[in-house]
């Protein structure tokens, strides 16, 4: 059974304090790994898609990386506006639906 586990569940950072969020997955053939951002009261917003181990994608202060067992979302010098829940999801070659992790709630204090 496809499974996604994110850690930590919650992360509190000071503005400018860089850190990483982890997404561990088990899947029967990875078709893609996706990162979403979700603000309170809103639907998830797409950030990145990664398709193969070794791939990296960047957007502003965010950088996503992928290995055969996990993905990291690196946040460099975060700002308060980066506060949100970050969701990871996988799509397997067997199934056509996204399997989401439980999310990491990030809080960045000024």
């Amino acid at each position, binding site marked *: 059974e496809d499974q996604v586990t994110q850690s930590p569940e919650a992360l509190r950072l000071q503005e400018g304090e860089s850190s990483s969020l982890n997404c561990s997955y088990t899947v029967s053939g990875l078709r893609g790994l996706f990162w979403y951002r979700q603000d309170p009261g809103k639907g998830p917003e*797409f950030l990145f898609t990664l398709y193969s181990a070794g791939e990296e994608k960047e957007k502003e202060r965010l950088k996503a990386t992928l290995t055969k067992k996990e993905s990291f979302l690196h946040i460099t010098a975060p700002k308060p506006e980066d506060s949100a829940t970050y969701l990871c999801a996988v799509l397997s070659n067997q*199934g056509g*639906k996204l399997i989401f992790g439980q999310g990491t709630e990030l809080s960045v204090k000024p």
Partner: protein
Amino acid sequence: EAGVAQSPRYKIIEKRQSVAFWCNPISGHATLYWYQQILGQGPKLLIQFQNNGVVDDSQLPKDRFSAERLKGVDSTLKIQPAKLEDSAVYLCASSLTQGRFYNEQFFGPGTRLTVL
């Protein structure tokens, strides 16, 4: 470009009552999804439509949940009768055709359902 629209935004009902949610996807998006997101969890797919046909409803509790997509555009999700454990945010998403290649899913703001 207008995003995915959902209504209502909030709904409070008593257990055993019925409720319906509405979704209008992004124009031209053939694939529509309904997700259930329980507090503290990630979204879980309930049903996926390709145009007005069902692609996947394996996780839809069919004894109480139903969904339809008329004319391949708008969709409604119904719960009848509701249980306490149905309290969650119901998210609608849409994407261009999902066949061999995955297309980014765009999510609506969701409907927060509270069952008392």
